[in-house]
């Protein structure tokens, strides 16, 4: 009997979704015109969030590169420490741009070359020892970017003295430099494109088709939220999809102390885009939240934006109780990771169903098959 009820609910759900998403023509007073100024929202997001985030990111990469050059000149504990500090700053700055997989970033697959993890030490060591590698190949995603640097700076030896002596060798030093320089160059290409041409293209593509900027931006945002933020940082290491926790699949497992900090940084970025908070925090711009409220006022429906924000507050509170090292958290008390996952997940329905319906945006990605 219970299973019959469950089946009915499962059957009824998609119908309810379809209903609220499609024709409202026949229901009184609901056929309202969406008069929200999409171009104004795009302009604010580009000028106050995306471009400043990339500027910040590239400036941190420049610092990282300078520290890399210093280390190349003189490998020592102080220069290694400096390199690690600038690594962390750049990695945190990355969390603010990762979701903008649009324009040049999408075309050059910036995210794949920057932050695919877990990294593969075997591939890295193979590249270093045979010196014959092509970092452009997709099979080398796992041997570059921040995850590979996390391995090199923290995991290549048993302790700091070991790490230093290994990195001192020419082969390691040149691979390290190459990774840092490449990270910088591909990030800068995207920033340059935003500043030269793409800003205008992005802002002027202000319609509401599948290829319009708002539709793409929102889809990229949700894809990021589901795949990289929810699954990558929490769900996969907690074993949500495989059934078995994989503690080594957390972000930055070799440094083993920054995964929470990186997650919290990305959570700030996720919320700032939604709320239209400028990168420097000094101002707010027209945002997804405003857009949602605009639709809600027109339709006299409930305040979904507030529900999303409330849900995120719950998630943030849960995150605070986690260890700084998610690896350690998974290994000692994975239930807490799963609880965070659940809170993050609860916002997915609000974002993916309620918000997308309000904006009349079609999801343009499908959950990968996993095989």
């Amino acid at each position, binding site marked *: *009997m219970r*299973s019959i009820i469950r*089946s009915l609910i*499962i*059957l009824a759900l*998609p119908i309810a979704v379809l209903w609220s998403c499609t024709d409202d023509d026949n229901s009184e007073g609901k056929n309202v015109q969406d008069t929200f100024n999409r171009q104004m929202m795009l302009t604010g997001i580009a000028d106050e969030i995306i471009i400043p985030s990339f500027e910040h990111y590239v400036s941190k990469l420049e610092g990282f590169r300078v520290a890399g050059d210093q280390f190349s000149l003189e490998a020592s504990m102080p220069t290694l420490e400096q390199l690690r500090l600038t690594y962390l700053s750049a990695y945190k700055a990355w969390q603010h741009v990762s979701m903008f997989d649009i324009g040049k970033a999408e075309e050059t*697959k910036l995210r*794949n070359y920057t932050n*695919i993890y877990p990294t593969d030490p075997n591939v890295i060591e193979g590249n270093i020892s045979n010196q014959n590698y*092509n970092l*452009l*190949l*997709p*099979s080398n*995603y796992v041997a570059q970017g921040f995850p590979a640097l996390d391995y090199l700076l923290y995991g290549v030896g048993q302790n700091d003295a070991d790490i230093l002596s290994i990195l001192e060798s020419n082969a390691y030093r040149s691979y390290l430099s190459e990774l840092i320089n490449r990270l910088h160059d591909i990030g800068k290409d995207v920033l340059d494109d935003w500043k030269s041409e793409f800003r205008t293209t992005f802002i002027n593509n202000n319609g509401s088709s599948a290829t319009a900027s708002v539709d793409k931006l929102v889809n990229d945002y949700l894809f990021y939220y589901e795949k990289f933020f929810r699954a990558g940082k929490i769900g996969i290491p907690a074993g949500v999809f495989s059934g078995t926790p994989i503690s080594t699949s957390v972000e930055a497992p070799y440094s083993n102390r920054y995964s929470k900090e990186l997650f919290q940084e990305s959570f700030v970025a996720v919320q700032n885009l939604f709320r239209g908070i400028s990168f420097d925090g000094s101002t707010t711009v027209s945002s997804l939240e405003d857009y949602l409220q605009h639709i809600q006022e027109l339709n006299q429906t409930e305040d979904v934006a507030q529900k999303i924000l409330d849900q995120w507050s719950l998630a943030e509170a849960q995150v605070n109780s986690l260890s700084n090292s998610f690896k350690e958290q998974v290994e000692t008390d994975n239930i807490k990771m799963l609880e965070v996952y659940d809170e993050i997940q609860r916002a997915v329905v609000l974002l993916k169903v309620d918000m997308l319906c309000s904006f009349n945006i079609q999801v*343009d990605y*499908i959950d*990968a*098959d996993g*095989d």
Partner: protein
Amino acid sequence: MTYKFRLLLILMSGWCLVACSDDEMPDIVIDNPAEYDFVRDGSSTVSFSGQSTRIAMATELINAMKDFNASSQLMLEMYANETSSGGDADPYSDPALNASTKSVKSKVAASSDFFSSNTAESAIIKAEIESWIISQVSEVFPRKDNLAEKGLAGQIADGSSVRYVNADGLEYNQAVNKSLIGALMLDQMCNNYLSTSVLDAGENRVDNDAGTLVDGKAYTNMEHKWDEAYGYLFGAASNTKNPIPQLGEDSFLNKYLKRVNDDTDFAGIADDIFEAFKLGRAAIVAKDYNVRDQQAEILREKLSTIVAVRAIFYLQNGKIALENDDFGGAFHDLSEGFGFVYSLRFARKANSADPYFTKAEVDTMIGQLTAGDGFWDLTSTTLDQLSETIASKFNFTVAQAGS
């Protein structure tokens, strides 16, 4: 409660059919258990170790195809479980498989109904799968460190994953994996073990009626044949008596039963299949061959549906990815689709001696997928047309299968 009710329904339908069709045996009572669990004198009569073995062998094969250190000789030995000259081979990592005399290849396109007098085609299919194994090593592996281009094998990004494709964009490992679902599993089930030509072969009926067991075994021949069909779907399950709660435990038919069952348009198909297997087996115990054969027909249609739905699903997803210029994602979908299309050759219509598609029809579809530069050249029109061609033979739509 639910179970008793279902049993009652089944018994009622069985009674009605028996009563309506012939009056000779009006009071057969089928004892349909809750689980696929049949016992005689305290011993289980269920056995399908040979199927579990072949699933395990096929799994090692498809994994080896993704290992750049593996040779084509090793892979071919995994396929045939013998050396190229017919000698004993030990290609598997699992010693139990090396000790086995069974093989994947000998059961590819080898059903009684479709291939016993069609050995030429059987040989062509066996060799075709072999050629994909060989080409993986000769065409794709040497270009593993190059980017794939139109007309050139190599690697290509699919999201954050890497796919290794031939010059047409086809992943041979996917072609082998998904084609085996039809050529091995579906063919052996629908056209062999569920067929009267096998179930009733020789003295099987007489023996089953008399309860005559196979020498040294706890089962009759007919019982065992039915179990062997069951084993091709559930032979890798951790709970083979009650496998439905944990579907997806192999990389073959079981996995895709789960996928189709998870699609709301086809929800319940897993239960339907399990119930048909169970009732059919119970009917054999009860010597009710009408009910047995009715279940076989249900199974043919439902098992064929799995393959057809997944063929369309991947063609449609490949189409969407191509439209988004996501070649890597598209090629991966289309490689899976290729294998499922190939598998349609083995799909069997209910209450018929015919396949849903002849070899010639499937070859035409495969030809459309691989024409010119293959997946690089595919258009949405072709993929939609192929999807419609498949759906038109079944009672579901492209839209239902495609998402």
